[in-house]
C-alpha cells in the first residue's frame, strides 16, 4: 500500500498521535439521554482524524463507545455481536475481573465508575494546548450536549511533563505501527523488532498472524453504503475498519506509599531508594534503561541518538536479570523477545520446535512479544509530588493522583488482557513465584499462593536480594472497554448514512 492510500482521514488521530503538544485534556464519561440528540451531537462533533496537518492543531476531539453505548445509540444487536467477546461482555464480567486482577480492593464493586449504573456509554476526549481546554469544552458542550447526554464523570488530567506520578519518565517505548503494511508478519521471526503489523492496532487489516480480527461485517444497504468494504470479504461492509479498541482504566497511585516503602527498604538512603525504584521499573527516573544498549539496530527503533540511548536494547544478554530484574515493570510488559530464543538457523529452529536444546529453567518460557503489544495513550491526573515530599505524611483531604491508563489494541484479549493477566498480575511470570509487577501489582493472594508481594533483584554470582511485603501502590478506580470507530463508522453509528 502506498502512503497516499493509508486511510488516515478515516482514522481517529489518537491512533497515530498521543497529542503530546496538547498538554490539557479531559475525558468525559457519559450516558445517552436522548438518542436523537446524541446522534446529532456526534454527527456535528469535529472529531480529529489522523491526517498530519502543516500546522499542529490547537485542539482535538475523540470519541469512543462501549457495547451498551452502541446499543443506546440504536446500533442493531446483530452488529454489536460482531465485535469481540471481551468488548461485548465488558471489563467487569466476573471471570474477567479475576483474570485482570480486579479483585479485593480493586474489585469493580469498589469502583467509582464502570459498574452497573455507572458504565459509560461513551467517552468524549477533549485535548487542547495550554489554557485552551476550557474554551474548547464550553464551545462543544452547549445546549445540544445537555440534551443528548447525562454526564457520569469528568476525568481531568494533569501534565507532569512526561513523568508519571511516581516520578519516572513515561511514554518512552511504543511499538511502531506499520502503516504502509510493508512488513511481513508471517514468521518465524528470530530477532526482536519494534515494528508491528497494522492489524494489531486497527481493525480490518492483517495482524501479526496475517489474519483479520473479529469485527462486524454487514450487508451493503442504504444505511451502510458509505462504509468501507472488508478487505477479506469484498461484498461485505466493514464496520470495524480504521477503528480499534480503547481500554481505559483509572489507576490511583499511592505516591507517598511508594517512596516511603522503598526509602525504608533502603534504610533511609535516598540514592539507594532511587536505585530500587529503577530496578522496579527497569528504567531510571530519567528514563534510561538498566539494560545495556546494543550496537545492532532494531527494526522500528529510529536511528536518532536519543532514541537509541533509550530504546535500542533487548534483555537477551541479561538472561538472569542481573542488570534489569526479570520482574521489572518494563521487562514484564515488553520482554523484547521473539518467536525463538537465540536467533537460530533453520536446523536449530527445527530442533527447538521439537522441544530440544532449550533446557534452562527460563528458556523459551515467555510468549513472543509481537503478539502482545499495546499502544499506550494514558495521561496522569492529580497534583505532582516529588519523591522527597512524598516522604512526609499526607495532609488531610489530599487530592487523589494517578494514571488514566489508556491503550489501543485490535484484540483486547490477546493484547491488553494478556499483558495484564499473564505478565503484570501473574505471580508466576517467567519462572518467578510469589511476586507480581512491582509497580502495578495488586498483591492479592491467589489459591495456594498467599504471597504476591515479593520483588527479586538477582545479583551476579551471588544469592538474590529480595524485598518482601510490597503493598499495592496502584488501585483501580474505574474502567471500561470502548470502541474507537473510524470516522465513516462513526457516521454510520449516528445514522447519518441513511
Amino acid at each position: 500500500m502506498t502512503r497516499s492510500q493509508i486511510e488516515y482521514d478515516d482514522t481517529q488521530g489518537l491512533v497515530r498521535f498521543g497529542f503530546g503538544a496538547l498538554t490539557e485534556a479531559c475525558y468525559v464519561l457519559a450516558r445517552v439521554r436522548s438518542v436523537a440528540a446524541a446522534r446529532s451531537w456526534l454527527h456535528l462533533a469535529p472529531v480529529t482524524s489522523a491526517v498530519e496537518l502543516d500546522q499542529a492543531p490547537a485542539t482535538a476531539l475523540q470519541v469512543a463507545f462501549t457495547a451498551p453505548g452502541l446499543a443506546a445509540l440504536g446500533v442493531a444487536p446483530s452488529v454489536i455481536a460482531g465485535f469481540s467477546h471481551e468488548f461485548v461482555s465488558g471489563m467487569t464480567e466476573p471471570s474477567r475481573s479475576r483474570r485482570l486482577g480486579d479483585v479485593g480492593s480493586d474489585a469493580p464493586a469498589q469502583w467509582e465508575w464502570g459498574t452497573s449504573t455507572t458504565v459509560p456509554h461513551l467517552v468524549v476526549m477533549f485535548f487542547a494546548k495550554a489554557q485552551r481546554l476550557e474554551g474548547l469544552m464550553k464551545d462543544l458542550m452547549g445546549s445540544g450536549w445537555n440534551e443528548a447526554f447525562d454526564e457520569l464523570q469528568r476525568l481531568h488530567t494533569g501534565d507532569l511533563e512526561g513523568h508519571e506520578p511516581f516520578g519516572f519518565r513515561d511514554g518512552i517505548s511504543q511499538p511502531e505501527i506499520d502503516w504502509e503494511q510493508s512488513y511481513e508478519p508471517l514468521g518465524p521471526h528470530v530477532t526482536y523488532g519494534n515494528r508491528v503489523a497494522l492489524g494489531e492496532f486497527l481493525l480490518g487489516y492483517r495482524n501479526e498472524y496475517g489474519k483479520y480480527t473479529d469485527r462486524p461485517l454487514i450487508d451493503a444497504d442504504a444505511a451502510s453504503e458509505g462504509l468501507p468494504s472488508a478487505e477479506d470479504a469484498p461484498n461485505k461492509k466493514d464496520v470495524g475498519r480504521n477503528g480499534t479498541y480503547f481500554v481505559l482504566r483509572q489507576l490511583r497511585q499511592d505516591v507517598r506509599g511508594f517512596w516511603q516503602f522503598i526509602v525504608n527498604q533502603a534504610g533511609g538512603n535516598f540514592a539507594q531508594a532511587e536505585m530500587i525504584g529503577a530496578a522496579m521499573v527497569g528504567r531510571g527516573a530519567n528514563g534510561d534503561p538498566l539494560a545495556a544498549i546494543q550496537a545492532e539496530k532494531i527494526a522500528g527503533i529510529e536511528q536518532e541518538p536519543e532514541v537509541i540511548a533509550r530504546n535500542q536494547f533487548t534483555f537477551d544478554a541479561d538472561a538472569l536479570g542481573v542488570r534489569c530484574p526479570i520482574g521489572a515493570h518494563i521487562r514484564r510488559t515488553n520482554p523484547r523477545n521473539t518467536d525463538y530464543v537465540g536467533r537460530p538457523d533453520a536446523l536449530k529452529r527445527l530442533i527447538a520446535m521439537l522441544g530440544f536444546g532449550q533446557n534452562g529453567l527460563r528458556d523459551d518460557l515467555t510468549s513472543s512479544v509481537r503478539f502482545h503489544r499495546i499502544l499506550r495513550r494514558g495521561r496522569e491526573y492529580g497534583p505532582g509530588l516529588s519523591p522527597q515530599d512524598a516522604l512526609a505524611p499526607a495532609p488531610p483531604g489530599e487530592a487523589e493522583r494517578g494514571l488514566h491508563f489508556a491503550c489501543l489494541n485490535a484484540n483486547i484479549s490477546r493484547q491488553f488482557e494478556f499483558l495484564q493477566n499473564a505478565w503484570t498480575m501473574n505471580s508466576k511470570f517467567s519462572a518467578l513465584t510469589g511476586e507480581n509487577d512491582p509497580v502495578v501489582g495488586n498483591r492479592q493472594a491467589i489459591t495456594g499462593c498467599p504471597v504476591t508481594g515479593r520483588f527479586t533483584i538477582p545479583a551476579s554470582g551471588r544469592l538474590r536480594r529480595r524485598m518482601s511485603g510490597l503493598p499495592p501502590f496502584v488501585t483501580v478506580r474505574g474502567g471500561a472497554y470502548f470502541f474507537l470507530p473510524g470516522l465513516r463508522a462513526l457516521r454510520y453509528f449516528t445514522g447519518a448514512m441513511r
Partner: protein
Amino acid sequence: MTPQSSFMVLGAIDRGREAELRRLLASMNDAPGQVDAGNAFRDFENLHFARLLIIEDTTREDIEAYGLPPRSYPTYLAFLGDVDGDGDEFLEDAARRASKGLREIFACCEGFIESTDLVAWMKAHRTPSAADYVNWRGRTVRSARENAALYERLQRYIDDNAGALADLPPQAAHATLQQFVQAEQSAGRLALTPENPTPFGWTIANLLHLIGVPLVLLLASPLLLIIGAVFLVRLRSLEKSDLELCQRVEQSHSDALALIEDHDVTNQFSALGGVKPGVVRLWTLSFVLLIIDYAARHLYTRGRLARVRTIHFARWVWLDNRRRVIFLSNYDGSLESYMDDFINKVGFGLNVVFGNGMGYPRTNWLLIDGCKDERKFKEYLRRHQLPTQVWYKAYPGLTAVDLERNARIREGIESRAMSEAEAREWIAKL
C-alpha cells in the same frame, strides 16, 4: 522412580437422574467447578489431578453439518485422574476409602444398583487413553509437596540471613544452604523422602515399548509407505474441501466456561469432537495418536511437550467406537495464554491431531495453517470445550515450572559437590 498413570471411569448417565447428579457434583465445590478444600481427594497421597465431568453430546450440530446420519450418544459421566503408580490399584484404594461418595455418584449411571460391586464396576468401565502425556515422569505428589516446602524453607532462610549470605561466592552459598537443610532434616522440620525403586515390570514394559513400536513400524514400513502415499493424496484433497465450523460461540457458553477458570494458577481443559468421516481420517488420527503417545512416553518426559512447558497432564481418549475423541488436560495460565502457546509453539502438532476433527480450521499439508488462523482456532476450541463439574489439584498454586524449579533446587541440595559454574547456575534459581 515411581511412574505415573492415568485412569478414566466412564458411565452413561441415567437420563432421569442427570439433574440430581449435577446437584450432587455442585455440592462438592466451594467455588464454581473447584472442589472444596476439605474434599476427600486430598486423602489420596498419590493423586495429582482428578475431575468429574459430564460429557454432553455437543457434536450433533457438527455431524449434521457434515451431512452424516444423526446419532444419539448418551450423556456420560467421566471420573478421571492422574496418579503415582497403578490406576487399578488407585481405584481399589478409592473404593475402600471413599465408597459411599463414589457409590452415590455412580448410582446416577445406567446399570449401577445397590448391589453393584463398586470396584468391579469401575474397572469394567475404565476407558483407556489413546495417548497420555505426563509433564515429568517420576515426579510424585509427595516429592512435589516436599520440594515446595524445601523451596519455601530455603527462601525464608535466605531472607532472614540476607546479611550473612549476600556476599558468599556460589560454592560457599551452596554448601551453607546444604548444611542448613541437613540440620532441618535432622531436626525433623523438613522431609525429603528418597525415591522408590522403579517397578521392574514397568521398566521391562517400557523398554519393550521403546523398541517394539519402531520395530513394528520398520517392519511394516514398505506397506506404510504405500498406504501413506495414498493417504496423503486423499488427505490433500480432503483438507481443501472439509467443512470449517468456527463460527462464534454463544456468549453464554463462553461465559459459563470462564466462570470455572482462573481460580488457581492451573486450569482444567476438556474438549470433545467428532472425527471427520471416512477411514482415511480415522486411520490418520489413530497413527498420529500412536506417535504422540510414543513421543510422550519416551521423549517428552522432562517438563516439555515439544516447546510447551505449561501442561501438567494431558490425554486423548477415543469414545464411541472411535467416532469421537475427547482431549483432557491440566495447564498453567489462562486459556488465552494456553491457546497462544499452542498456536505459536506447537501449531504443527495441533494441526496434525485436531485437523482430523470435524470443523477444524483448514490445514495445508496437514501441518501448516490450521490453528494459525487465530480467530477461527480460538472459536473452534471454545466451541468444543465442555465445562468440568468438579476439579481437584493436589498442589494448589504451583505451576509445572514451579515444580521443575523446586526439583532442580532439591537436586542441587542432594548433590555432594558442585563446580563453580554449576553452583552459579544453581543459586540463580533461588
